[in-house]
């Protein structure tokens, strides 16, 4: 039918062209828009004028009828639409039958309504009612306008739908033919000639039309009688009721698709109406073209068919001209050309003229059409319904390619958007506009620029989409464009089909992929918790303040480095390396006068302060003084001694051949005056400490002291005064120091008691006695065994007392070594021997705490004393057998010594010239007795002395024979009972009182006889006789003791001698006698060997 024109890309808008076009149009459109705002009103005015020209009442009626019909049509149409959509599979015939039924029912309803209206009109004769109803009318009209605007949108949508239908038709050859048939049918409708061909249906329609015409004539007659307002009221009532009835019918027919059906039916109906309108307007062929044309294109054509649209459009028009009535088309084209001119020139006046002309033409058309309208209405409705059903069928025949539908839906959306865009103005305005537009469009489509313009915009959008979107869309558009021609259809079909497949496949793949992705994401999202991380500060750089900047750049401008602090570790101490201040100071201790310290700058105040400070520290001072006084005392003593000795002692030293010097102890004290020294004893460790026992003296100065013995403790370096003075009531027969430090003094008395003095006791706790204006501290013994231990004590005078050291180890050590002595401390025992040979052993105990109130259990302990003696054991050393055998004289013991190397062994000198040897624990000691060479003689052993230098072999014993006045000195070896050597001191010299080894030389010993002759032997020099014999008979010597210090640096030894005059002299031996020699021990050994 149509020329086999191939569809090309030019058919569609090229994006570039379109853009150009749109740009050129935009200005115009803006202008037009303004115009179009004005236009509807103007047009309405014109319309009214025109209609007025034609006949006032009639135009109005017509308009009302139109609106009424529209309204009437709406429900049915929507229902139809619903049918189409929901019940595609329904048969056409059934639909048609239903439609007929519906129409019939509607007719009936309408007739009933009219009757009712007539009744109601009679009642509503009153004006009050009329006024009310006018108000209602207005409201209704507004509502209707709203509805109509909706309908307008719907119409557009329907057009699109129609487009879809057309697409389907293109695909289906048969459908095309059908459509052509339909076109033809419509033509016939328009001409009202071909109606008979459609048979019964057509006839029925005609009948209906006739009925309606009749009704309308009646209406018109009624209207003539009544006011226009009343007419309007009535009409509206009728309309309302009619609609109600229609709706009821619908309900009855399709119970299910009620709600949706309304809208869809509306749309459908509107569409049909529009078809008809267009047919009327353009006269058949125009409508047909439009019907087939793509909707946008069509509108565009309305507006400016020849404008910037390509020649294609015109060609199509030409084609249509051939087919259809030419004159209409020409008219249209002329109009279009005019309009274009108008556009180009922009001449508003001409435009208006032209428009007016056109409108006039249109109105002419429309006046005809309006008359036709009523009769045609029903038929067209049914026809369109038929079409729709056909369409439905077509759809059913269609492959159900939903892609296409989807695409069209997209288009729909575009149009909706466009609709929304249009709603720039207020709603009211727009309603009015659209209402008017609809009317205008119906009457003269070229004038509806707004709509066209909107469509153009939509097109533009679509084309943009096209340019960017997939090729499939392009093809789709080409399909829509080429909808009118068969050949084109064919081409497009092939073309689109190829691309469709690939596109569809592509689409499918994409769809699948996206589906999977979506599924995956939905599944994963269940497993994963996504959250917002804490807002992390990547960089926070504070701005540099002005001050900082200034300081950085100028802060160091005027600074100069003056000092460097080098002791960097002492930052917190503020240590600076300044030069140290140096000042001279002096100090003195103890302070002289009031100042203890001073210097060139020190003021008097400062010195005062120092003085007070020094005195404040009294404790330290006291400690210092205590130690310093001893030194000072010695120094002072030496000063005195020097001054004395210059006169006296020097002469004396010359008198004694053995003496190297002499110190005279000051015994010219009031206390000691008239007392004879009976005993002298040196400490073994503190060799400068001397004990002197001053015997009882009658007729002394102080009577209280007459019956008491005084013991003086001297330091030979302090000869002026004795250090301590001890006092006891009875005569002291023996005394000794404690081993180690000479802190304790032990004494045995004539009455058999053993005494202990603790020299450490403070002087304050002892009695002070004033003797001849001199105050003396006399110390009573700390502990005394008097009467306390009567059962275990001695009953005869204690002749000898000796400390017994706890023997340490093998006994090879020198017991006299000071370190060992000191280490012993107080852990020693004391042995005391009385005349009857009873040896008592005492344990010396030092109490931890002194008790000033005295002890209740230890009655011998002086209050405040800390040292006491515990009786340990007793030993009878004199065998009874001997006593009995000899019978001459009782055995008497005179002297007790313990073996220095082994303190278990004791040696006791007896009155038979024998020395008994025994052990403390009853073990047998060999030899038991040491005898003189010549056998036993009645001689008392007065002294017994061990060799000092650790030579345990030798024992020197000196005995004095009392009866025969034969004094002898014997030297014994430990292992041999016979004496090694025996020297007889001259007969005229009386008994030997004392014999002692020199502590420094074991081969030197001295002996004093009763005639105060001192004999000194040096065995290395001469072993048969003493080398020195000094006669001291000018002042008889009452006691003598030898002392000496064996220390290697400064060995010295000397002899202390107490004279009858009371003088106490200490003579230092000559160095020849003092200094130890290597041959000393050899000589002793030689002598021993000789005798053995």
């Amino acid at each position, binding site marked *: 039918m149509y020329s086999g024109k191939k569809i090309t890309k030019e058919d569609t808008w090229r994006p570039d062209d379109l853009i150009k076009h749109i740009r050129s149009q935009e200005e115009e459109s803006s202008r037009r828009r303004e115009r179009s705002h004005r236009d509807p009103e103007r047009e309405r005015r014109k319309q009214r004028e025109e209609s007025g020209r034609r006949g006032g009442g009639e135009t109005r009626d017509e308009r009302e009828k139109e609106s009424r019909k529209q309204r009437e049509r709406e429900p049915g149409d929507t229902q139809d639409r619903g049918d189409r959509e929901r019940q595609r599979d329904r048969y056409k015939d059934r639909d048609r039958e239903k439609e007929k039924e519906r129409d019939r029912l509607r007719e009936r309803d309408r007739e009933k309504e009219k009757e009712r209206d007539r009744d109601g009109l009679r009642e509503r004769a009153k004006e009050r009612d009329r006024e009310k109803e006018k108000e209602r009318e207005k409201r209704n009209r507004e509502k209707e306008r709203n509805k109509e605007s909706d309908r307008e949108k719907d119409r557009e949508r329907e057009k699109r739908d129609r487009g879809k239908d057309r697409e389907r038709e293109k695909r289906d050859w048969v459908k095309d033919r059908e459509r052509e048939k339909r076109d033809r049918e419509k033509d016939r409708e328009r001409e009202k000639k071909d109606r008979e061909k459609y048979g019964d249906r057509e006839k029925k329609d005609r009948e209906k039309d006739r009925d309606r015409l009749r009704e309308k004539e009646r209406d018109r007659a009624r209207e003539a009688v009544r006011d226009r307002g009343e007419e309007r009221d009535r009409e509206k009532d009728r309309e309302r009721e009619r609609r109600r009835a229609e709706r009821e019918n619908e309900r009855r027919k399709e119970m299910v698709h009620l709600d949706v059906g309304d809208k869809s039916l509306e749309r459908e109906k509107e569409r049909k109406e529009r078809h008809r309108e267009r047919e009327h307007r353009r006269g058949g062929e125009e409508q047909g073209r439009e019907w087939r044309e793509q909707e946008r294109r069509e509108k565009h054509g309305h507006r400016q068919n020849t404008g910037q649209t390509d020649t294609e459009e015109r060609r199509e028009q030409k084609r249509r001209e051939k087919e259809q009535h030419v004159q209409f088309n020409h008219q249209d084209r002329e109009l279009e050309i005019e309009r274009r001119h108008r556009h180009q020139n922009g001449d508003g006046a001409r435009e208006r003229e032209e428009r007016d002309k056109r409108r006039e033409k249109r109105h002419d058309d429309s006046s005809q059409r309006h008359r036709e309208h009523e009769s045609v209405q029903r038929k067209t409705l049914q026809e369109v319904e038929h079409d729709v059903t056909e369409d439905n069928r077509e759809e059913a025949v269609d492959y159900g390619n939903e892609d296409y539908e989807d695409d069209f839906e997209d288009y729909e959306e575009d149009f909706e958007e466009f609709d929304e865009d249009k709603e720039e103005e207020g709603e009211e305005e727009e309603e009015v506009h659209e209402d008017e537009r609809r009317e205008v469009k119906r009457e003269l489509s070229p004038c509806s620029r707004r709509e066209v313009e909107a469509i153009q915009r939509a097109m533009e959008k679509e084309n943009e989409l096209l340019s960017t979107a997939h090729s499939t869309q392009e093809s789709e558009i080409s399909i829509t464009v080429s909808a009118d021609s068969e050949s084109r259809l064919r081409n497009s079909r092939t073309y689109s089909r190829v691309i469709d497949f690939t596109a569809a496949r592509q689409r499918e793949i994409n769809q699948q992929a996206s589906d999977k992705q979506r599924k995956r994401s939905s599944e994963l999202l269940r497993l994963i918790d996504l959250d917002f991380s804490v807002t992390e500060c*990547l*960089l926070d*750089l504070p701005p540099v303040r002005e001050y900082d900047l200034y300081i950085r750049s100028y802060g160091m401008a005027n600074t100069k480095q003056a000092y460097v602090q080098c002791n960097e570790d002492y930052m917190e101490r503020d240590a600076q390396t300044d030069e140290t201040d140096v000042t001279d100071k002096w100090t003195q201790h103890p302070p002289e006068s009031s100042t203890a310290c001073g210097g060139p700058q020190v003021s008097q105040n400062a010195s005062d302060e120092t003085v007070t400070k020094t005195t404040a520290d009294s404790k330290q001072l006291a400690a210092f003084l205590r130690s310093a006084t001893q030194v000072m005392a010695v120094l002072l003593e030496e000063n005195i001694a020097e001054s004395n000795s210059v006169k006296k002692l020097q002469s004396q030293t010359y008198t004694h051949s053995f003496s190297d010097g002499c110190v005279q102890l000051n015994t010219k004290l009031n206390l000691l005056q008239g007392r004879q020294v009976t005993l002298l004893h040196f400490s073994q460790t503190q060799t400068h400490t001397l004990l002197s026992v001053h015997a009882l003296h009658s007729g002394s100065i102080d009577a209280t002291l007459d019956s008491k013995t005084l013991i003086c403790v001297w330091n030979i370096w302090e000869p002026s005064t004795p250090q301590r003075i001890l006092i006891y009531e009875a005569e002291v027969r023996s005394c000794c120091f404690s081993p180690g430090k000479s802190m304790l003094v032990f004494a045995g008395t004539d009455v058999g008691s053993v005494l202990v003095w603790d020299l450490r006791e403070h002087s304050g706790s002892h009695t002070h006695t004033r003797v001849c204006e001199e105050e003396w501290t006399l110390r009573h013994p700390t502990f005394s065994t008097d009467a306390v231990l009567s059962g275990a004590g001695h009953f005869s005078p204690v002749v000898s007392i000796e400390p017994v050291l706890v023997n340490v180890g093998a006994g090879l050590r020198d017991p006299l070594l000071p370190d060992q002595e000191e280490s012993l401390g107080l852990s020693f025992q004391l042995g005391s021997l009385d005349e009857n040979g009873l040896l008592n052993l005492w344990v010396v105990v030092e109490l931890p705490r002194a008790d000033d109130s005295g002890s209740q259990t230890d009655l011998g302990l002086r209050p405040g004393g800390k040292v006491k003696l515990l009786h340990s054991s007793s030993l009878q050393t004199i065998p009874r057998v001997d006593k009995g055998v000899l019978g001459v004289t009782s055995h008497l013991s005179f002297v007790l010594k313990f073996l220095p190397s082994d303190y278990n062994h004791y040696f006791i000198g007896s009155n038979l010239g024998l020395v008994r040897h025994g052990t403390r624990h009853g073990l047998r000691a060999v030899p038991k007795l040491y005898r003189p060479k010549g056998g036993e003689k009645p001689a008392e052993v007065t002294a017994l002395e061990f060799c000092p230098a650790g030579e345990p072999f030798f024992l020197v014993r000196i005995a004095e024979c009392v009866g025969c006045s034969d004094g002898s000195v014997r030297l014994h070896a430990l292992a041999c009972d016979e004496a090694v050597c025996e020297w007889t001191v001259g007969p005229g010299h009386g008994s030997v009182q004392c014999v002692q080894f020199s502590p420094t030389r074991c081969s030197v010993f001295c002996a004093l006889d009763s005639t105060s002759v001192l004999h000194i032997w040096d065995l290395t020099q001469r072993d048969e006789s003493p080398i020195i014999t000094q006669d001291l008979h000018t002042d008889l010597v009452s006691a003598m003791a030898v002392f000496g210090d064996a220390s290697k640096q400064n060995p010295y030894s000397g002899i202390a001698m107490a004279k009858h005059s009371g003088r106490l002299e200490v003579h230092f031996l000559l160095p020849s006698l003092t200094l130890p020699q290597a041959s000393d021990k050899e000589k002793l050994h030689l002598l021993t060997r000789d005798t053995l």
Partner: protein
Amino acid sequence: MTELEQGANTFVIRPNYQHRFRVSVVRECIREILRENLSGVQYDPEETQSLTQTLAESIKHRVKGLGLDDRYKLLVHVMIGEQRGQGVKMTSRCFWDSDTDGCAKEVYINDSMVCVAAVFGVYYY
């Protein structure tokens, strides 16, 4: 895609512990690179662009060499700005799975420039 087609419930939604994005390690990397490349460098507006790019590249390569999980997507962001006493504040915020993803950043400042390098490791499920 291959992962997807194997079916449901085979998702690997956590990287192995050893191959995790450990911020401290990555930061150490960034620090090294920044120190190597920027010590003694003065700010030069013309070189900055290429410098940032090279920095970002080297950081990316270094971080890739750390043995992260293959599914980690690394975003390296390097900013170099001139240091003229102005105040700068940069922040970042992420919508992610904090169990797997992490951000390591390091700032290098010398007299003339400020450089901020941030590495975002995002686990790709």
